[in-house]
């Protein structure tokens, strides 16, 4: 499982589960989002974000359903904004901060 950037040769060995979302999502949400629950639009599975499958690099990350592996949402950062694509999410339950 080597994830290498074809241009820079940098191998990404970042964590690959939702626990790693705690820091990056703290830039957007006030709550600990690893304890948030997400519902998969594709299969209906309800899971904690801590339990999702995550691919991460320096530009952003992709969060996938722990059951069917469809993409729940993606976050891509650029200098001017952070873009969140939530097409794969049917709902997101955010714990009270």
């Amino acid at each position, binding site marked *: 499982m080597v994830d290498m950037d074809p241009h820079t040769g*940098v191998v990404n060995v970042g964590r690959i589960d939702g626990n790693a979302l705690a820091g990056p999502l*703290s830039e957007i949400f006030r709550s600990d989002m690893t*304890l948030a629950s997400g519902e998969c639009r594709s299969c209906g599975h309800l899971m904690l974000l*801590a339990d999702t499958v995550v691919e991460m690099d320096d530009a952003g990350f992709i969060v996938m359903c722990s059951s069917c592996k469809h993409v729940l949402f993606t976050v891509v950062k650029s200098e001017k904004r952070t873009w969140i694509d939530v097409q794969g999410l049917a709902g997101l339950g955010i714990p009270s901060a």
Partner: protein
Amino acid sequence: MVTADPVWHEGTVLSTTYATPGGRVLTLHVPEWGGNIAGQHLDLRLTAEDGYQAVRSYSIASVGEGDTIELAVDQIPDGEVSPYLTLDVMTGDQLEVRGPLGGWFVWHETDPSPVQLIGGGSGVVPLVAMMRAHAASGSTVPFNLLYSARSDDEAFYYDELSNAKGADVTFRFTRRGPRGWQHPVGRLTKEVVQQATLPPDSTPMVFVCGPNGFVEAVATWLVELGHDPARVKTERFGGN
């Protein structure tokens, strides 16, 4: 302490110690830290001279209040952060950290459940934090660790874990054991997991941490052995 803190804090490297041939234990002084719960992690940010930044997550081996943090970092050829931390970083260097992070893969001393920890390689780090928290708390719940490492030389915290009090520790070496080792050597199997861990009917809380393939295999066996999937918490990092 569970609530995420999005602020980056300046930290200073207090000490670096080789813990394994390729891994180091680092202690950092972060004045604004404020302590952490056992099992939490932090994000570490490095900035190169040209302004390029890299962020990586590391589990925290230390627990409780205070402004000194202990990390154990394994050498992974990721081209940037881990070689810096395992080879180049020196006492007095400045780093940026964000945390403590994560309220899910954590152990609270008020939890009355027995605890089964299963670690692979440097995945033992958050489990060491839980062992330390358990020892410091006076909690009397059964604590049991199964640790798979290549050899005793390459096991993080081997001496500390060998002498752990109030907890049952089983090592499983995949390449070779220490001198005079009487137990089989080899990869973890479902049978070893069954023999060396708390049975499902004692309804333990189970924490599994290690490389992706290790966690996947162990978590699958635990459920096959009868553990409630909701009581098997996993944390995985890249690689096999």
